[in-house]
């Protein structure tokens, strides 16, 4: 396998298969029912080099709304997966939500400010992604990632739109998570977290940024291509098996 040097064409020529890499962004949150913005997002996502998008909905999103959004993205030439983001306040709530939502979505992402809930989510095989964005304590992050069996989601929006302009805190937190990911060999998924057209970024640019923050280049590229794609595949297979 050829060494990656930031997505340059030289490597594409050398390895042959790098240019065939398909990219997926698992955190695209298109605004509900705003068709013009959804169309713009779909066109830009395609232009940015994505081949699959994970559309993130709220748990109460209606099927009609999900389908109409997905149609817009499919018309732009993108493969769409349905995902749901939940923010349970307790372990009990987490288990209840996962039980009801698992059969309706291709993947489930969990974010919670409660460490015990997040720790339970990170060990639950029905949960696909966990985000540590709401966790402030580095010690808690360390203990969760140590026993994490799901993939950790790193959203670029955490740096692009930090809460109250706290760029330094967001960067520090992201760097720490990357350090822990390397130490515990946790699976990692990079995503944009785009809530509008201006939040979308090119997958190779995101991988380059993650590389500068400390993630090994190959893992950074996999985190936005093979890992999210395999996650979508796994979710779909599970759903198909369940329906059959």
């Amino acid at each position, binding site marked *: 396998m050829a060494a990656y*040097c*930031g*997505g*340059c*064409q*030289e490597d594409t020529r050398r390895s042959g298969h790098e240019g065939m890499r398909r990219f997926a962004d698992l955190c695209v949150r298109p605004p509900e029912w705003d068709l013009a913005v959804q169309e713009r997002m779909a066109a*830009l996502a395609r*232009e*940015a*080099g994505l081949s699959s998008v994970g559309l993130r909905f709220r748990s109460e999103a209606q099927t009609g709304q999900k389908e109409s959004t997905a149609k817009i993205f499919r018309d732009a030439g993108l493969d769409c997966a349905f995902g749901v983001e939940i923010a349970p306040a307790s372990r009990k709530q987490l288990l209840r939500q996962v039980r009801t939502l698992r059969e309706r979505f291709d993947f489930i992402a969990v974010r919670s400010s409660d460490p015990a809930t997040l720790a339970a989510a990170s060990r639950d095989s029905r949960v696909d992604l966990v985000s540590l964005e709401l966790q402030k304590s580095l010690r808690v992050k360390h203990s969760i990632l140590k026993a994490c069996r799901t993939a950790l989601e790193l959203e*670029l929006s955490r*740096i*692009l*739109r930090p809460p109250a302009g706290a*760029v330094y805190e967001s960067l520090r937190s992201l760097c720490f998570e990357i350090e822990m990911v390397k130490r515990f060999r946790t699976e990692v998924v990079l995503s944009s977290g785009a809530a509008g*057209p*201006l*939040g*979308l*970024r*090119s997958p*190779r*640019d*995101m991988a*380059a*940024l993650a*590389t*500068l923050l400390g993630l090994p280049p190959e893992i950074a590229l996999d985190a936005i291509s093979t890992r999210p794609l395999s996650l979508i595949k796994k979710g779909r297979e599970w759903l198909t098996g369940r329906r059959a």
Partner: protein
Amino acid sequence: MQRERWRYLLVRVVSDRRFSEEDLRSALEDVLRCFFGLTGLLQANLKILRYSPEHGEAVLKSRAGSLNIARSAVALLTQVSGEAVSAFVVRCSGTLRALRKADPGRCKLHSTWQR
């Protein structure tokens, strides 16, 4: 002495408002200085070769060894003269000619390149 190697990036700049090349240059410099410091700014040596406000496309030149910094600066660009923007690299190449030839239909700047 070894010749300097460069990378040429075709960048799409998305915004609701048009702005000048100078504004874009200054915004990119601010991002580089803020996230990578003066050394990062000097290492990347990022230059805008072409910019079309109508098409929202720019061609940037960066040192080959600092391609990750250049790509990251583009990804981290969120504002140009107070206006919200997003930018991403559409294509990256080792020569300007290859950048133009690779996908002329995609690059709207293509028609304006005369040099």
